[in-house]
């Protein structure tokens, strides 16, 4: 059984994550997911690669907290959060979030809340490699 919250180098499969979600309950009516991908373009510049770095132990702890909070706050049946920490190219998967609920409204609200909170609370940093050089990404306020 793969863990519901993970930080890993390797890619993940939506099918495998969804299958793992469904094991827990036959009461799931809707699963909302968010898949974050690497873009070939950011803030007007071409991006060749994106390289991630994490404070691994704290990031994993925060992601687990985030999942528990979302499950309680939105009454979810289950949720999963997977973040890759490696170097990726345009089109590659970065982050996957899934929220399973009896009805779709809670699933959508929870999924969106988790990705918004992840960006604020989880100690992971990205550096964009462009033809003009590398730079750490500074999030907008």
């Amino acid at each position: 059984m793969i863990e519901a919250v993970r930080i890993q180098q390797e890619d993940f499969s939506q099918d495998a994550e969804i299958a793992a979600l469904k094991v827990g309950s036959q009461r799931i009516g809707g699963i909302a997911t968010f898949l974050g991908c690497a873009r070939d373009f950011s803030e007007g510049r071409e991006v060749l690669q994106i390289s991630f770095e994490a404070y691994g132990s704290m990031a994993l702890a925060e992601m687990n907290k985030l999942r528990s909070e979302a499950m309680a706050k939105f009454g979810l049946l289950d949720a999963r959060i997977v973040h890759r920490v490696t170097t990726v190219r345009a089109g590659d998967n970065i982050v996957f979030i899934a929220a399973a609920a009896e009805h779709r409204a809670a699933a959508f609200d929870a999924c969106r809340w988790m990705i918004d909170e992840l960006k604020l609370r989880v100690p992971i940093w990205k550096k964009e490699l462009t033809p003009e050089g590398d730079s750490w990404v500074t999030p907008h306020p």
Partner: protein
Amino acid sequence: MIRVLFFGPVAERVQAREMQLEFTQGMTLHDVIVRLGMQHPGAFSIVSFIAVNQNQIHDKKMALHDNDEIALMAKFSGG
């Protein structure tokens, strides 16, 4: 011993991923930041979050304990 960890943009400025400081009784988070700031002027201007033992801390007057793990972190940009 106090371990101080750096990641991403902060690690790049400090040119290190980890430093160790001798622990002294009564030492605060503030003391550590001041001491490192003198060794690396300007390097910590991008620090937005501080964690002690993987918990975010807002009060820099917090007393440290021997073997504490501190992280001085720039704004997160994951996801």
